[in-house]
């Protein structure tokens, strides 16, 4: 990615603290269109908390967020969505007792002129997106509780795709999936990337990270250790950053 381009997202000097604990301590990070930036680090490194500030789940205490070069305020999930930011959470933020269509539109339901839920329209839109993402998906009107992990993940991804996400945050998207389903999600990430969507990928799986990411940001104890180009580092060097909290001399 060339330097002259405006980044899709720029997070500047973000700080979040819980009581006395600095969960995120002055992190600056950027994301370009069509780019996958992996966030790695041990448990409690602050990756998820940092992404929560972008998603509006937990506003930052200080710092700036720029989307397409404009400073934006993200105080809640609605604000985030208004800027084209969609999240696919680790624990799959789905309501188990509601069907796929209901989950896809959760919080953004389609309604008829009288204000009643337009279930038929929502089911129809869900089917359209699903045909593109997971053509085998048929259970549009059963509660998602009865679906497999992969199917549930495709509901979560369908939500992001349907609402034209420009910026996608994926928190361990393959943690709950089997090998075939993981492959499916990887293909999808590649496809979304080709469409110019920027993706923040939180992952523990170093192989996933090297296969999918363009750049890798390593965090430790709330601080950014460094951001490296995937092609200029080895897996061992990244692991070294995660464990030692130091940037290798060879990178950049």
């Amino acid at each position, binding site marked *: 990615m060339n330097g002259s381009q405006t980044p899709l997202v720029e997070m500047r000097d973000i700080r979040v603290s819980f009581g006395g604990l600095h969960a995120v301590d002055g992190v600056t990070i950027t994301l370009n269109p069509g780019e996958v930036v992996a966030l790695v680090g041990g448990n409690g490194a602050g990756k998820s908390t940092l992404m929560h500030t972008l*998603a509006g*789940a937990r506003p930052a205490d200080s710092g700036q967020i720029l989307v397409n070069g404009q400073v934006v305020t993200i105080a*809640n*999930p*609605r604000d985030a*969505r208004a800027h084209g930011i969609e*999240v696919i*959470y680790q*624990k799959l*933020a*789905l*309501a*188990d*007792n*509601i069907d796929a269509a*209901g*989950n896809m539109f*959760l*919080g*953004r*339901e389609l*309604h008829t002129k009288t*204000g*009643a*839920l337009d*279930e*038929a*329209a929502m*089911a*129809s839109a869900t*089917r359209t997106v699903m045909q593109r993402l997971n053509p085998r998906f048929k259970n549009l009107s059963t509660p998602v509780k009865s679906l497999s992990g992969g199917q549930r993940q495709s509901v979560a991804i369908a939500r992001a795709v349907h609402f034209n996400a420009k910026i996608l945050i994926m928190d361990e998207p393959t943690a709950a999936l089997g090998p075939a389903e993981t492959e499916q999600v990887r293909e999808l990430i590649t496809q979304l990337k080709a469409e110019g969507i920027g993706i923040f990928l939180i992952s523990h799986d170093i192989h996933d990270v090297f296969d999918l990411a363009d750049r890798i940001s390593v965090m430790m104890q709330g601080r950014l250790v460094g951001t490296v180009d995937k092609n200029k580092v080895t897996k061992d060097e990244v692991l070294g950053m995660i464990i030692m909290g130091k940037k290798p001399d060879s990178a950049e």
Partner: protein
Amino acid sequence: MTATHTDNAKSTEKRRDWRSVLTATEIDTRLAGMVAAIAVIWVAFHILSGGDFLTSRNLWNLSVQSTSIAIMATGMVLIIVSRNIDLSVGSLLGLLGYVMAMVQTRWIPDTFDLGFGRWYTWIVALIVGIALGAALGAVQGAVVAYGGVPAFIVTLGGFLVWRGLIFRMGEQGQTLSPLDDTFSRLGGGPNGSLGEIRSWILGLIGCAGVSFSIYLARRRRRRYDLGVRPLAIDVCLAVFGCIVILAGIAFVAVGYESPISGDPTGVAYPVVILILVTIGMVYISRRRRFGRYVYAIGGNPEAAELGGINTRKTLMLTFVLMGVLCAISAAIQTARLDAAVTNLGVQNELDVISAAVIGGTSFAGGIGTITGAVLGAVIMQSLRSGMVLLRIDSPSQDIVVGVVLVSAVAVDAALRLGKRRLAGIALTVGLVLAALIVQTGRQ
């Protein structure tokens, strides 16, 4: 050997056919099970009482007596679905009933010096009751949703406060009576029914409504190119619905002749109110965003929050709605008594929660239906009425209702886990215990 094999195959196939027809109707199996349970209870009591249960008079009374608990149970479903509880409904009902009685017996006639029997008396009383119910519900809901105090504690407080306020208002627990003539019709007493002709009109409206809603659902699904049920099944459902409505009106409502005038009574006003409330609550819970959000919060509060749903406001509104329904039930109960007494609604909270739970509402959250709760209230009232017919003493009635409550939930829980044998055991134990208590409790 081969013969048995083909026989087996044939019978499995037949069973599958039968099942697929049932699946095609898309009827909720849990609701169907409850209707079956009601049928069994009614027939059993009919036989045990020597033919007294399935009479127009008994079923008419049963329908009226179920209304108050059923109306509140529709609101309790939403509260329990969103993982809360409301223990205050009995006390709140008592307070609202008392206030509505004060409006008609003290405030309008004396305080404002307008006299008795005004055309607007009952309307003012109702509006005051409903507004106060909504306001007190909002207070409890706000403390739960915004204050972060568990609903159990908040409504336990409400349980004590609302009941105490009745006595503060009621000058040493005075009974307020008689009430406004028009108001007391809401209880289904004298002149408290639609009468023959208007009952039939209601029935025809009901038939048209059922048929039209089936048609509308069909048209919507077709427009979006989604699968529709076979036409034959939709027609059968519509015809069946109409037959049930008209037969119910013919046998129960019109068939029951008023003991006073000797004319057919028709559908009682409380039952009309229950029907309207049920339709309204089903619509709110299934077709409005508010209802969808209540279920989403119950299913996964975090997902609801992350979905951008205003969960606090939604939770508060469930309590507001509960307060309104308490006011409607309070009007029916005071009107039925033609008086407001200080112990009105005592223990109603337990009956309301039981009705919701027997109706399939789960305390784990996210699961429960309005129609289930109404049927749950009918089951409870059927047990009570049946046992009264069998002259079973009141303490034994309580034991039976308690046993049925626990075993119904046990059966439901076992079926949800797919443990059919366990469900069978729970059902058998419950039935044997209940039968034993009924048999030994007869006087």
